[in-house]
């Protein structure tokens, strides 16, 4: 690995200052499961890794709030998948977090890292989009909140400004009479990047909100009405062909996975009733 420096700030302010004074030459590191792989492959000309795991004002737990949950930026995917409140109220997010990599990866990888790396195939992105998550962002100039669908701007790019840091994610509890599920297609059961992923939230009335992964330059959100074929979701996606799947196959599978996800969401709605 090419040599780089390592900093371990104690506060968000300190981390943000380090990031701004080294713009383009520094990266935040939480679990490091993407960053260290990229460094090893020589994809980064990074001079400074800013380890934010000891930043005292960043949480690593899911906190219950009035009307929803707040997920600390440093929450590990393994803990997110196992969290009781998340499993009960946001099952698509629990399923998605549990589908990333392996135990070893999920024991290090964090929710903020998963979204900030901004892979079009990020597994937690579809459920966060479907549930309408809000991203709480810290900056030296002040804090702001951005909706999940405005967060991803291009492959590997987010709406974060220089020096900004994701602090937490807020999810409102879905209304009663809703169900949700996550579906993922990969070439093997573990340790594979999704070829296509779909999360959906279905209302009793038939309204559906879906999030898609790996079928466009960013994760994609769609809203509509439940139909038998769900073929309308094809209009929202812009898949490409790569080593994991071809464009036509992805287009067909996003429809099939949407159907499955809606069906499982419906079933879950029944269980609650």
């Amino acid at each position, binding site marked *: 690995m090419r*040599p780089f420096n390592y900093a371990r700030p104690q506060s968000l302010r300190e981390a943000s200052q380090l990031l701004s004074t080294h713009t383009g030459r520094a990266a935040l590191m939480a679990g490091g499961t993407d960053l260290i792989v990229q460094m090893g492959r020589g994809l980064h000309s990074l001079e400074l890794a800013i380890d934010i795991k000891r930043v005292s004002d960043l949480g690593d737990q899911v906190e219950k709030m009035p009307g929803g949950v707040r997920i600390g930026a440093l929450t590990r995917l393994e803990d997110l998948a196992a969290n009781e409140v998340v499993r009960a109220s946001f099952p698509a997010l629990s399923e998605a977090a549990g589908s990333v990599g392996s*135990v*070893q990866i999920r024991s290090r990888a964090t929710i903020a890292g998963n979204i900030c790396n901004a892979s079009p195939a990020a597994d937690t992105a579809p459920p966060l989009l479907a549930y309408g998550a809000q991203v709480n962002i810290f900056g030296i100039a002040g804090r702001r909140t951005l909706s999940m669908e405005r967060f991803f701007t291009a492959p590997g790019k987010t709406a974060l400004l220089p020096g900004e840091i994701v602090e937490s994610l807020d999810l409102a509890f879905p209304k009663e009479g809703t169900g949700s599920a996550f579906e993922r297609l990969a070439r093997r059961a573990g340790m594979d990047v999704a070829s296509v992923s779909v999360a959906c939230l279905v209302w009793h009335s038939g309204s559906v909100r879906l999030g898609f992964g790996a079928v466009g330059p960013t994760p994609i959100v769609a809203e509509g009405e439940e139909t038998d074929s769900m073929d309308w979701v094809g209009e929202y996606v812009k898949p490409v062909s790569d080593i994991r799947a071809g464009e036509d196959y992805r287009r067909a599978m996003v429809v099939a996975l949407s159907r499955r996800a809606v069906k499982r969401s419906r079933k879950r709605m029944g269980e609650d009733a």
Partner: protein
Amino acid sequence: MDAPAEILIKVTINGGQHRLSVSPHETLLKMLRERLLLAGTKESCGEGECGACTVIVDGRAINSCLMLAAEADGSEVLTIEGLASGGELDPLQQAFIDAGAVQCGFCTPGMIMSAKALLMRNPHPTVAQIKQALCGNLCRCTGYTRIIRAVLDAALQPGGPRAPQDTGEEHAEDN
């Protein structure tokens, strides 16, 4: 860029406390193998795909190739060398031998550390849970069947955790 300064860390490894000066970009794997000569932890892919470098840090199985030594400051690290005590193998190590779960042996330390982390959290896992826990560990020789059996056997040790509900009928066929 200035040459990165070394970082002083304190880390507990297999119960012993160490103060080490490490490079900022040095992985925990490299530190274990090259500074402490704990060569039981293997490097294979170096990208978190194969699990050969798995060690337990603060109770969790992790890929030591994807963790910087500096990040381990203040942590407790358990490697394959830390399992045996008083000249006695850990029951899990013995189970791997007895089940014939080792062929070339390169993946074995990582397999055992992943399985150990599972048994520390869940002393009586099902076959499905064992497979889930080991899905980040690749083995090119054994076909996994005997590895899964070894973990089940370790969980069934006399005086150990109670028997799991499923004893893995799907593993009746052996390679």
